């Protein structure tokens, strides 16, 4: 039982990373109606920025904060410069543009920092603690706390601030928002900025255990996609629940089902997802809102 709970806890830590990136995807999906395939590469790029900062002698938390700011500015710039011109074109065009960004950023990251794996510092002690017989590593605990704290801050922002309200309104109806005098273009850029910062958190949390290389977030992006779709692509709560569920699921399946083992986690997780979606196409928390307004 203790061994099982241990797997659950480290699954939650892994899942918290999926949840952060999934939330970034949902954020952009709700406002721009498009899946940002470059979300993972944006996160990888900013994680490398953090690595460079720390390499220059900046200590962990200042580098962490600075990276969030850089990610925010970068994300907003991407929206303004690359996404804006195709905003009103068919969905497939926007998706392809984000795929172009994925390819270019992946190449650029490798070009700047090289393809070899880099060690990324962790702010958490490399020790474990014992809670009622369950051995928990501080690393897992720290990742879980940072990710959940980020999600909480974001939730509070959307729930309690006027800017957050306006951004939710834009996601609801761009035209109605314009009629209220909202500068919709800037709100979309803001959304991309926030999503990029969230992705940066996910990247910096993933890097110490997954090791930092240009393909750091590729598999994580797929899990996060899966988490977002599982939770319901238009539901922020769903993204978080979906991420945590998926994290626990792959850890438990990988540990206790011999056939799956370490290698087949991804295919197994996606098969589970496919089955869920066939039963409930809108995902666990997604809704097909009956828009009466």
């Amino acid at each position: 039982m203790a061994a099982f709970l241990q797997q659950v806890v480290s699954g939650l830590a892994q899942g918290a990373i999926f949840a952060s990136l999934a939330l970034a995807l949902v954020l952009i999906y709700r406002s721009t109606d498009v899946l940002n395939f470059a979300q993972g590469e944006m996160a990888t790029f900013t994680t490398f920025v953090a690595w460079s900062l720390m390499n220059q002698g900046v200590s962990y938390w200042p580098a962490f904060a600075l990276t969030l700011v850089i990610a925010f500015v970068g994300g907003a710039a991407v929206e303004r410069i690359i996404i804006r011109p195709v905003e009103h074109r068919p969905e497939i065009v926007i998706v392809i543009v984000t795929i172009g960004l994925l390819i270019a950023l992946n190449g650029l990251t490798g070009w700047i920092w090289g393809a070899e794996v880099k060690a990324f510092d962790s702010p958490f002690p490399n020790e474990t603690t014992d809670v009622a017989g369950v051995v928990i590593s501080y690393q897992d605990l720290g990742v879980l706390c940072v990710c959940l704290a980020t999600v909480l801050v974001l939730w509070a922002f959307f729930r309690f601030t006027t800017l957050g309200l306006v951004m939710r309104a834009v996601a609801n109806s761009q035209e109605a928002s314009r009629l209220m005098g909202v500068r919709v273009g800037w709100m979309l850029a803001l959304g991309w900025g926030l999503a990029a910062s969230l992705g940066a958190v996910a990247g910096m949390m993933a890097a110490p255990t997954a090791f930092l290389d240009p393909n750091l977030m590729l598999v994580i992006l797929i899990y996060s996609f899966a988490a977002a779709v599982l939770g319901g692509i238009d539901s922020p709560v769903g993204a978080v629940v979906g991420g945590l569920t998926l994290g626990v699921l792959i850890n438990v399946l990988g540990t206790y089902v011999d056939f799956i083992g370490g290698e087949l986690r991804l295919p197994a997780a996606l098969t589970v997802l496919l089955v869920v979606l066939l039963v409930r196409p809108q995902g666990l928390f997604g809704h097909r809102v009956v828009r009466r307004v």
Partner: protein
Amino acid sequence: MSWRTILRKAIGPALFVLAVVVVALLPRFMGEFRLLQFTLVAIYVIALLGLNILTGYSGQISLGHGAFVGVGAYVAALLSLGRPGLELYMLDPPDWIPIGDGMRPVFTIPIAALVTGIVGFIIGIPALRLGGISLALATLAIAVSFPILMKRFAEVTGGGGGLNLNLPETPFGWDISTRHWLYYEAWVAAGILFLLAWLLVRGRIGRAWRSIRDGEVAAVSAGVNPALYKTFAFGVSSAYAGAAGALFAIETAYVNPDTFPVSLSILLLAAAVIGGLGSLAGVVFGALLFEFLPIYSQEPPLFDLSLADQAPAVVFGVFLIVVMLLLPGGVAGLFRALANVVRGGRLRRAAPPGA
């Protein structure tokens, strides 16, 4: 019919004949290495034809095309080696897999296409029911899982070490080298599959695909069953990928899980888009680009420099974005717009046909 209409109708076939002549004469002017490159172009033409049918004509994105190319390659490798060949690798696949005792590589091409097509059709059934986002996710997942699966089931595939094939000999006692034979084999296959694709997209099925692409609701009211046609498009597109994969395995005489990484799938989609979605001629541009852009962007001609390994990806990505921003019809759309100017028309936005 006016001269103008006749001219317009003749331009497609004329270009095709011209392409055939160029392809037939090209080997006279190049060495073995160039020949290999142009053989690969033919293979990419086939793969991109499939992707264009799916994305350009039926309007669905696949980020897993490279995996289906891989399936075709492995089918061809297993069939041409046969059980005796696999024994040399100490491989003993389960008896229920009908691998046979080895066959001439060229015969594996249609089988690989058929098997891959069926695999695609089966995967397409659940994936396509889920619609846009889930399809993108599912295909991306297939692309990521493919190398993992090939390594995991090493008792059939040889795992990470891959499988070596024998380069086939030139048949019928022709007096040309194997490389030349493979070149013609690939281009004949590409030509046949090109014509087949042309017949498909201009007929009833193509119309149904386009109506689905341009609006599913309209398609349903026109009596088209979107799920069926979408799944069929997925199957056809996979079959093309399978044929390309088989040729690739035969040509390079080697298959390995890492020959078919995620990036292959993603870059294939990029090449299809840059060449021009919804244009069969655009496929040729896309294939040329796919083969030569990486080479030339790493060592740009006219400049005496050698850029990093990652330069091609950056160029490809930026190119893709710029094309989407400025030329939604891709290279093919650009040519259409230019032709329009030459005919005295106005320069219009190079939009894909039907968009």
